[in-house]
């Protein structure tokens, strides 16, 4: 009965590859987010979608492209992976201004 689920949990790949992370929420929330958490645990928003529409796009390289096929799903595709992309990526969802619910993260390691 996981509320916000991400796949995969771990992703190890080489520099230059393209990869995707998937996120699904079963809470009926209208808004979904992607966050990046670096090695110092700093958590920063990357994107936010509301009802499949992009509403927040922080200063993120064009290599990152979110896609929301429906309001329950928000995927993140990353092209030409770089060493600096190594981090934990969290998906979250919320309804209105109520607290965001987070998934357990995808740990991305670039070799």
């Amino acid at each position, binding site marked *: 009965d996981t509320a916000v689920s991400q796949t995969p949990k771990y992703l190890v790949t080489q520099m230059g590859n393209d990869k995707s992370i998937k996120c699904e929420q079963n809470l009926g929330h209208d808004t979904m987010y992607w966050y990046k958490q670096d090695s110092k645990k700093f958590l920063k928003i990357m994107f936010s979608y509301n009802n499949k529409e992009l509403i927040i796009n922080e200063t993120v390289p064009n290599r990152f492209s979110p896609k929301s096929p429906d309001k329950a799903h928000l995927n993140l595709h990353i092209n030409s992976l770089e060493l600096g992309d190594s981090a934990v990526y969290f998906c979250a969802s919320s309804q209105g201004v109520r607290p*965001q619910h*987070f998934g357990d*993260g995808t740990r991305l390691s670039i070799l």
Partner: protein
Amino acid sequence: GESVGLHLPTLSVQEGDNSIINCAYSNSASDYFIWYKQESGKGPQFIIDIRSNMDKRQGQRVTVLLNKTVKHLSLQIAATQPGDSAVYFCAENTSGTASKLTFGTGTRLQVTL
């Protein structure tokens, strides 16, 4: 005690003692604040929230205090337990910014037996 350095600030408390975790927020226009707990290998988990029209809110074993004058937020945990060991984040939100949360740097709470 509390320490700040290259690593996450860490607060060590003995089991049964009360913990106070502090947070200085950045935006005077922020009107909604949340505390999250993050355990190892997990995502942030909601603990308690407070709106700017309040200065105190209590939950089960937790209390959040808000001082808007000095832009300071604190989380008090009563009778700290080993299961409270985690990294704690404060987050702020400004209404009208599409629920965009800005997170603080986090504090690691270590509970010793």
